[in-house]
């Protein structure tokens, strides 16, 4: 079997341009790999359509870097006539009638959608285990979680089933699985990428972003999906950068902050050690590194519980058994139709979160919890803005740990939120953040580093990430026994 899909986008582009390979070769490789071993990365495959498109592309000029490149799409991004389930029984036969803005953009670039990837149900979870479908596994070690909620996107790219994927990140759902699976995953600035067509979890936090095998691919895909959108009034008209130009720029003189909170004892020793090694590397390269305190970071989880779950309880109200999604078979009145359809359609974690979210918005609780959380969120944002008046970037570990065994978090609802301890503050403030692979632990499980910049300063993230990537020269292909 071929293994083109472990090559970079630029390499594939050269091969396609010189007609050494055709798009169909990449598509056939993807489906051959998936048939052989799919890590449960996909919920729905787009095989027939993908093969047809690949054939059609043969008559077209290879006009951009992403032309003919196979991509996987998280299953909470709507795709016209391609089932979109949110990994939920509620939507397991939902065929959308329109394309999300990001889907339109990747189609314009003639990328080929291989399929819709597995995830935690409605993006609620950080292991992939809350999926209604058999959950995805980590290609580095299949007894370990791939992370979540973008579990299938991470498994698909890490397993080289596709070149790259789109994920979504509400509290760490791109960065944490990227870190667990040895990928480069970016949550863009809030408003950088249109949310139109992303089935909302928490509207003020959600953002779609690229999950890729390397930094360069990430920059290319981000540029392709970014931009203001009249269908999303929260999208920004800040001009889209030519991110690829930021790669390889000098890092000397960059001012970088390391929050003490990110290097506390809750962080695994090996993870911390790897981050410190990179810090030493950066200091050698002439970066100025300071350890600083950022106030309010410790409130990230309660803030998330209140704001994200409050919004979710409202966003998921439309799944009521009347217009789309699961409808219960038997009911005698309206209330029973609602109750049974929702009870049957949603899984445990989703129900738990809807209940918590409804509770924090109820009556007087809105003041006790929700409005207070908004005030605190505002303070946290101000604290970050303050840091970025003095520093170019913030770095630290993406997560407190590496990929862990299945089942360990499912007995404790709170524990799973702690995976997002270091990623949530970035969503709260609306900042861009990347997880970059920086090495492995003693079990050869990937370790991710978090790189955060100020608003719409994704270029700076790419500059630093490309430098670290070049210096570390990690082999990030879990291989699974394959060679080219």
């Amino acid at each position, binding site marked *: 079997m071929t293994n083109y899909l472990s090559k970079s986008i630029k390499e594939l582009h050269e091969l396609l341009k010189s007609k050494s390979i055709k798009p169909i070769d990449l598509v056939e490789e993807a489906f051959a790999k998936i048939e052989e071993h799919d890590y449960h990365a996909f919920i729905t495959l787009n095989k027939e359509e993908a093969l047809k498109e690949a054939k059609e592309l043969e008559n077209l000029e290879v006009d951009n870097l992403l032309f003919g490149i196979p991509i996987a799409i998280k299953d909470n*991004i*709507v795709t016209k006539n391609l089932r*979109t389930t949110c990994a939920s029984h509620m*939507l397991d036969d*939902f065929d*959308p*009638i*329109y394309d*999300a803005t990001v889907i339109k953009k990747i189609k314009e670039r003639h990328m080929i959608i291989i399929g819709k990837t597995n995830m935690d149900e409605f993006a609620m979870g950080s292991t992939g285990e809350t999926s209604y479908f058999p959950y995805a596994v980590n290609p580095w070690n299949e007894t370990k979680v791939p992370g979540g909620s973008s579990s299938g996107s991470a498994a698909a790219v890490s397993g080289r089933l596709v070149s790259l994927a789109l994920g979504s990140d509400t509290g760490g759902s791109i960065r944490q699985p990227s870190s667990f699976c040895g990928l480069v995953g970016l949550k863009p600035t809030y408003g950088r990428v249109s*949310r*139109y*067509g*992303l*089935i*909302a979890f*928490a*509207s*003020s936090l959600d953002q779609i972003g690229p999950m890729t095998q390397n930094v360069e691919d990430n920059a290319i895909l981000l540029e392709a999906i970014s931009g203001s959108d*009249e*269908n*999303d*009034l*929260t999208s920004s008209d800040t001009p889209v950068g030519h991110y690829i130009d930021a790669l390889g720029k000098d890092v000397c003189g960059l001012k970088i902050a390391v929050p003490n909170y990110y290097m506390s004892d809750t962080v695994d020793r090996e993870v911390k050690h790897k981050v410190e090694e990179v810090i030493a590397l950066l200091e050698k390269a002439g970066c100025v590194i300071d350890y600083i305190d950022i106030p309010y970071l410790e409130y990230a989880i309660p803030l998330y519980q209140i704001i994200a779950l*409050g*919004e979710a*309880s*409202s966003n*998921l*109200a*439309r*799944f*009521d058994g*009347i*217009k*789309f999604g699961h409808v219960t078979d038997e009911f005698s009145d*309206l209330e029973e139709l*609602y109750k049974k359809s929702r009870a049957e359609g949603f899984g445990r974690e989703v129900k738990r979160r809807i209940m918590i979210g*409804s509770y924090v*918005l*109820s*009556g007087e609780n*809105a003041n006790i919890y*929700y409005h207070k959380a*908004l005030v605190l969120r505002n303070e946290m944002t101000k604290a970050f803005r303050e840091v970025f008046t003095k520093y170019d970037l913030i770095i630290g570990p993406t997560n407190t740990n590496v990929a862990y065994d299945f089942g360990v978090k499912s007995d404790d609802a709170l524990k799973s939120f702690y995976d997002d301890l270091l990623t949530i503050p970035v969503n709260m403030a609306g900042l861009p953040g990347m997880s970059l692979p920086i090495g492995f632990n003693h079990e050869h499980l990937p370790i991710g580093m978090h790189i955060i910049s100020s608003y719409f300063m994704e270029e700076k993230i790419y500059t630093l990430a490309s430098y670290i990537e070049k210096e570390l020269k990690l082999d990030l292909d879990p291989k699974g026994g394959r060679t080219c």
Partner: protein
Amino acid sequence: MLVPTIGVEVHVELKSKAKVYSHAKNAFSNEPNTNVEVIDLGYPGTLPKLNKEVINMALKAALACHCKINQVMHFDRKNYFYPDLPKGYQITQQETPIGYDGYLEIEVDGYTKKIGIERIHIEEDTCKSIHSLNGTLLNFNRAGVPLIEIVSKPEIANDKEAVAYLETLREIMLYLGISDVKIEEGSMRCDANVSLKEEESNQFGTKVEIKNIGSISYVGTSIRYEINRQAEMLKRGEKVHEETRRFDDKTNTTILMRMKETGNDYRYFPEPDLPYVTISDEWIQETLDSLPVLPAALRKSYREAGINENNIKTLIANIDLSMFLERIKERCNPVVAANILTGDLLSYLNKNSMTLDDLNLNPDYFTSFIDLLASGELSSKQGKELLPVFLEKKESPKKLAKLLGMEQIQDTDALLLMVKKVIEANPSSIEDYKKGLDRATKYLMGQIMKESRGQANPQIVSKLLVEELEKY
């Protein structure tokens, strides 16, 4: 003594071109479920847009009602489950209504009073549910149609004030051109809150809400009924319950719909999908400058011009007539113009089921018609005859009057002959005149007009008649 406390909530449907949160056409009356976008369906993944025309219209309403403006405003979600609410929440304005703390001035029984306005906010309408034997049908044409809700302060003292408040409010919305405000079609919906308290107490009584009342006069009837019902209950020592009632127009009573549950929990929170809207000072000023003449100002200017109250009422109620009068009133006698507009012209329109627009009335012809009447060149009887002719022929009324032989006889000698002839033929009238009876001149005048087939100039005839009678 028990006194009522009344507050009124009004929903007004705005006639913007598009819906408030999508680009779908705002035309409920079209074929059901044709003006629908994915946004209106609450389709997964969709996000609301924001129609600036709606904000402009709401801003006009708020300013016309003397409201303060929330210059940084946002939208909120009101969460509840109902089949006519596709998203499971309504996008409304809870925390920052576009307008607050305004008032309307009403006239009742010769006194004027300011009724405070608590708030005016923007929100979306729901689907229209049609309940049938086979189940409930939903028409999404209405989902997302823009509404403004106007909430009065509880400062209305009785049914008459409530009716006056609603009529005033309705007129303003009509003159702003932002709504059809037709209660029977649902583009204006009224709820009233009624409670009774002891006059000297500063504690409000238990409030009863009367929902969706079918006409403004029914609002008056239902409030009157509700005041009596509650007073009777209190007299009997019973407690008034917090409840929602509806008005039944067959029995002229209110009927219990449901008891109020303790505090509906709508779990309001700021709508994260829409950005904050800033209404600048310039925006407000521009809107103020663009406001049309409103009924209160019109009424004042009509009174100053000497137009009678009945005609004023008819003019205000017929916006196209009052706007037409505004265009021409400087160029002709406004009292005569008002008489014609509210009288012969309006009945002509009604008879032919036309609007003033359909008529395409030439203002120059109309003013010259009014001049003919005001100067006495045409008698009112001739005016009645000429009006439909010049409206249909669309030609100069002067020319037409001539063609129709309606020119007046102004020749004094010719008229004197006629006067003498009539007096001689009616000797008893001379006696009456000597006794000082009015009817004598009136009768003779009528005879002369008959003789001249209405063409005698009445001013000249009147003068000649008196001169001749004095000779006896």
